[in-house]
């Protein structure tokens, strides 16, 4: 990533009128250098005001910053320029959903699917939106999230984490795949092949749902593990165990691209945590197979 940023910065320095500013802003955004990303995006757009992908990046930066109104305006601008821009349609859906307008979110996702019927992310998001019970619009000072629907991404990196819903609410809208497991909605997380949370949950010691944050991080871990296995001739990775100060984490692939994360207290021996994770993986695998995944 750092190399990407260096390369793109050099490319932009050589040719300040280049469209590389959008890639550079996106790379900076993914490194959480939001202010710098915003500066690069705005500077680039001042030269290329009709560059749809530039506005798309700008929208994602605003979304990361929690400025949903500006994000929506930027995605609307993209759609003025390129009405079939799938990323912007999903972006608008994301913002609408976060603002409590499920109908508008569904309409935008249906449009995204009309443009690209093979867009699985849009299809899943639409399913999620339709499954979600209608809720009254939240007060303007509170996060509007009712379920975990992620903002769109241009590449393979994970979506920016939206403000977390309360754990109980998150658990309510996720299928009870791990019921029967200890702390089934607080310490076990199942992600699909797109890095989206599909079951379980991860709750911080403060009681907030950190599932989306974990999902974002796990995409990077999985990618790095795959790369490591390939480069070193180790083959496909089976598990990653991280022993940390206050908890042990076990990450494992489930089927074709899905991932499971299990967090166990440090007091549980690593071997036992691995067995627990293996059981949870088996359960997840069976459930995913039943879903046709």
């Amino acid at each position: 990533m750092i190399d990407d940023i260096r390369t793109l910065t050099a490319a932009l320095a050589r040719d300040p009128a280049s469209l590389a500013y959008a890639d550079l802003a996106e790379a900076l955004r993914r490194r959480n250098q939001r202010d710098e990303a915003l500066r690069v995006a705005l500077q680039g757009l001042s030269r290329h005001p009709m560059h749809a992908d530039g506005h798309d990046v700008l929208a994602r930066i605003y979304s990361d910053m929690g400025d949903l109104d500006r994000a929506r305006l930027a995605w609307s601008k993209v759609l003025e320029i390129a009405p079939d821009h799938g990323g912007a349609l999903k972006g608008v859906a994301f913002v609408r959903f976060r603002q409590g307008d499920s109908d508008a979110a569904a309409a935008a996702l249906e449009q995204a699917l009309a443009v690209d019927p093979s867009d699985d992310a849009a299809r899943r998001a639409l399913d999620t939106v339709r499954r979600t019970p209608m809720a009254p619009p939240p007060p303007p000072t509170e996060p509007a999230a009712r379920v975990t629907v992620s903002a769109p991404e241009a590449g393979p990196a994970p979506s920016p984490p939206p403000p977390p819903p309360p754990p109980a609410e998150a658990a309510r809208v996720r299928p009870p795949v791990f019921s029967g497991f200890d702390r089934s909605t607080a310490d076990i997380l199942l992600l699909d092949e797109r890095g989206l949370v599909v079951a379980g949950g991860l709750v911080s010691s403060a009681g907030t749902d950190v599932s989306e944050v974990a999902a974002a991080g796990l995409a990077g871990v999985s990618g790095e593990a795959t790369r490591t296995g390939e480069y070193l001739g180790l083959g496909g990775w089976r598990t990653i165990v991280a022993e940390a100060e206050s908890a042990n984490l076990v990450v494992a692939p489930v089927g074709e691209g899905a991932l499971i994360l299990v967090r166990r207290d440090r007091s549980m021996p690593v071997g036992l945590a691995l067995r627990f994770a293996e059981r949870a993986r088996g359960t997840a695998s069976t459930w995913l197979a039943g879903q046709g995944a």
Partner: protein
Amino acid sequence: MSDELGRALDRISRVRGMRGSMWVSAEDGLPVAQLLMEGVPGKAVAALAASLVRKVSGTAGAVGAGRVRFVQMEASGGTLLVALAPPDLLVVALADSRVNIGLARLEMMRAAQAASR
């Protein structure tokens, strides 16, 4: 290679199934000292191990697990093990699937703790 670092690698390399061990700079993923079997790509192991640890540490921090001390990645053809030796070193080991992870971990953590003192 300093004597102390070399001795630690020697102890780790005696564990059955071990293909190589190294000290790696955590910041830039460059090898500091290494004891590898022929054919083990030291620079690649160092770079990839450091990168993996960064990613894992980021996730662990984000989910409240705290600072990572040891990482093991098990794959179909072997295992990559990393012990963190704060503030700036990693003990990295590459092993085949016969390795006794518990024993390797013990030696690696011992080396990491000695280096951190």
